């Protein structure tokens, strides 16, 4: 189909084209909800079935890094919304500035995620790769605080103690299940962030050419929808993975 300016040949008007693009993105997001939904369901059922192992495992996550990342993502959603607004009112320079800010915040999030994953790798918490939930408490690093290691050890002992009514004799297997889901869910989320970052790079390039005007700003708007969706996934992931049953 031939293209006239910003209008593709299969459409009659720019408005129709914009409505189609926006509806298309909303429908895509519905499929994403169901895609993540399968993981959320699997997580919830196992969280219920193995609450001790999942509790112990989630306590090994770094609340500060997770919390910091949550703030970073919420801020990136704000800058994304600002760039959509700037495009709609025709402030071309601000579109670019806010898009760049969004991209920086997004990459910050991914950078912090790398730090967290590295930590898990060092603590032998990567599933199917010498996974050992007790490794860290038995092999603390010089930088670890001794009382935290003692706390962790005590908690692990309590989890397998037969006198404890909530004991879990298969703690390592169930903790591995937790980390399978942790890496599955945060990994899939990170993959979506990477795709989003790629889209932002493209938007920045186009907006530097001054392509987005009050008449035509559909790409900014629908990438914005996508970006907000990915943020919302994290808003659910953070409490599910980090916060439930937190006691350290």
């Amino acid at each position: 189909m031939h293209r006239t300016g910003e209008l593709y040949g299969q459409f009659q008007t720019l408005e129709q084209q914009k409505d189609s693009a926006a509806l298309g993105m909303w429908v895509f997001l519905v499929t994403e909800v169901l895609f993540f939904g399968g993981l959320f369901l699997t997580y919830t059922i196992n969280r219920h079935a193995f609450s001790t192992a999942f509790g112990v495992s989630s306590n090994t996550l770094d609340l500060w890094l997770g919390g910091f990342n949550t703030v970073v993502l919420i801020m990136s959603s704000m800058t994304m919304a600002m760039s959509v607004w700037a495009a709609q009112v025709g402030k071309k320079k601000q579109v670019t500035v806010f898009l760049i800010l969004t991209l920086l915040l997004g990459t910050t999030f991914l950078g912090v995620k790398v730090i967290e994953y590295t930590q898990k790798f060092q603590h032998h918490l990567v599933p199917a790769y010498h996974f050992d939930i007790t490794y860290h408490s038995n092999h603390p690093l010089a930088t670890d605080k001794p009382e935290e290691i003692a706390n962790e050890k005590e908690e692990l002992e309590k989890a397998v103690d037969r006198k404890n009514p909530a004991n879990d004799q298969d703690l390592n297997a169930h903790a591995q299940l937790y980390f399978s889901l942790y890496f599955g869910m945060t990994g899939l989320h990170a993959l979506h962030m990477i795709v989003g970052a790629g889209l932002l790079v493209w938007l920045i390039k186009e907006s530097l050419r001054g392509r987005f005007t009050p008449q035509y700003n559909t790409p900014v708007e629908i990438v914005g929808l996508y970006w907000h969706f990915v943020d919302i996934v994290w808003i659910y992931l953070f409490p599910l993975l980090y916060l439930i049953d937190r006691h350290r």
Partner: protein
Amino acid sequence: MSIMSNVFGEHKLPREHYLNATYGIRSWLLTTDHKRIALLYLASVTFFFFVGGLFAAMIRIHLLTPGGYLVSPETYNKLFTMHGVAMIFFFLIPSIPAVLGNFLVPIMIGAKDLAFPKINLLSWYIYLIGGGFVLYSFSTGGLDTGWTFYTPLSSVYSNSAVTPAVIGIFINGFSSILTGLNFVVTIHTMRAPGMTWFRLPLFVWAQYATSLIFILGTPVIAITLLLAGLERMFHLGFFNPALGGDPILFQHLFWFYSHPAVYIMILPAMGVVSEIIPTFSRKPIFGYAFIAGSSIAIAVIGFLVWAHHMFLTGESTYAALAFSLLSYLVAIPSAVKVFNWTSTLYKGSISYDTPMLYALGFIGLFLIGGLTGLFLACLGLDIHIHDTYFVVAHFHYIMVGGAVMGYVGGLHFWWPKITGRLYPEFLARTAAVVLFVGFNLTFFPQFILGYLGMPRRYHTYPEEFQALNVMSTAGASILALGYLLPMVYLIWSMRYGKIAGPNPWPATGLEWKTDSPPLTENFHVTPIVDWEPYDFSRRPDLGLIAGGSLAPAHGDD
């Protein structure tokens, strides 16, 4: 239209149409024209149909004798698995939506193309990549888990090439998702002036309902198979009881998609039948709004019945009761359709052209398939016939007797629009009858076998079942002939068939108001719709003489 036909009623092909607009392999492989993409899909799903058919033929030959001499038991497991995977994921699910739907939805609503033509092409390539992985699995060790991929068999114990198959089906899912997304958006935003929701052809309603299932169901099977695949590759434990996982959870997630997938297969075929019946009865369809609504109802209720596949897994009695009741409920919108089709026939001016033969065959076979579905929804009876040939016969009546009959009938009905030429009518009617007879002879004995207790998926059976099995194999040979015939004469007709003209039947839809084959842009000018659907009486352009006897729909050959 008068430009195309001279006084003797002889037609000529239009000078320019989508098939001769551009030439060369690039103009096909990089096309964004929905009609060309439909033909790309037609070629690829036909390929997979014959792959799946080959496995089916081997299964039937093996079962000629109680001992089964053709293949080893292990190979037999692979045959029925690969038959199911090829047929369900790579033929039945994309068949009507991606071929006929792709071709027709934009034309039927008066649009120039789908809303996202490039995404449409992308979905075909995704299909090819997924299909490539699955063929790789078939040819390097095969697949023996059953098409259901139940864990932990698929994720731990099977020694066959499960991983590439799972990856292939995962990838192929995105092809379905993108097709569904494209249809939903197109139907919402691309309708021509005057094409209101309740003037949409029922085929479009059916595609819309199907697309809803694509969108809501396919992501769930994607994530489920992804988890099962990861479990197999990295020895994780999502669904492996030895590592704390839950195999029943896999079954729930699997059937949450795979039961609605049955409606992905049958709903579009129902849409085809809803187009054919009024055309060859020369009568507006009876109960338009009810047929449209029942498509949506089937899509919605279809999502609430999945656990009837799991009555024997030890799920709670109360859950089983609820799922049984909900499964019965699906019968209501299905019956609404059947009653409306038969009411349309009543006092109609019926002509038995080939598409009509398929449509009538569909009604009969779907009726049997649907009613035996009620047996299976019944908690007590299901315990007796679960996992027997009764189930096999039931779902083949729906999927082959229903979906494939609808697909082949639809191909004939719209063949003049797709190619601009008519197929040889006598041969086509013969093939339709051969298919009907062959199908019933293949699958009706299987109801009896199942009821007598022959389990599915076994490579051997007791001697007293031989007579019925031989009947079934004989039927399958006739069925194969019934599929090969159209294959041959349809290809022949692409070059030598009689020129069809814009509206050979004549039928009332928008697609018949443009050239055959249509222009790349579908219409010379965007049509404005000012008539009600399936209304023959206020349509002088159809050439039917008011008060006079109706011309035979197919001419006089």
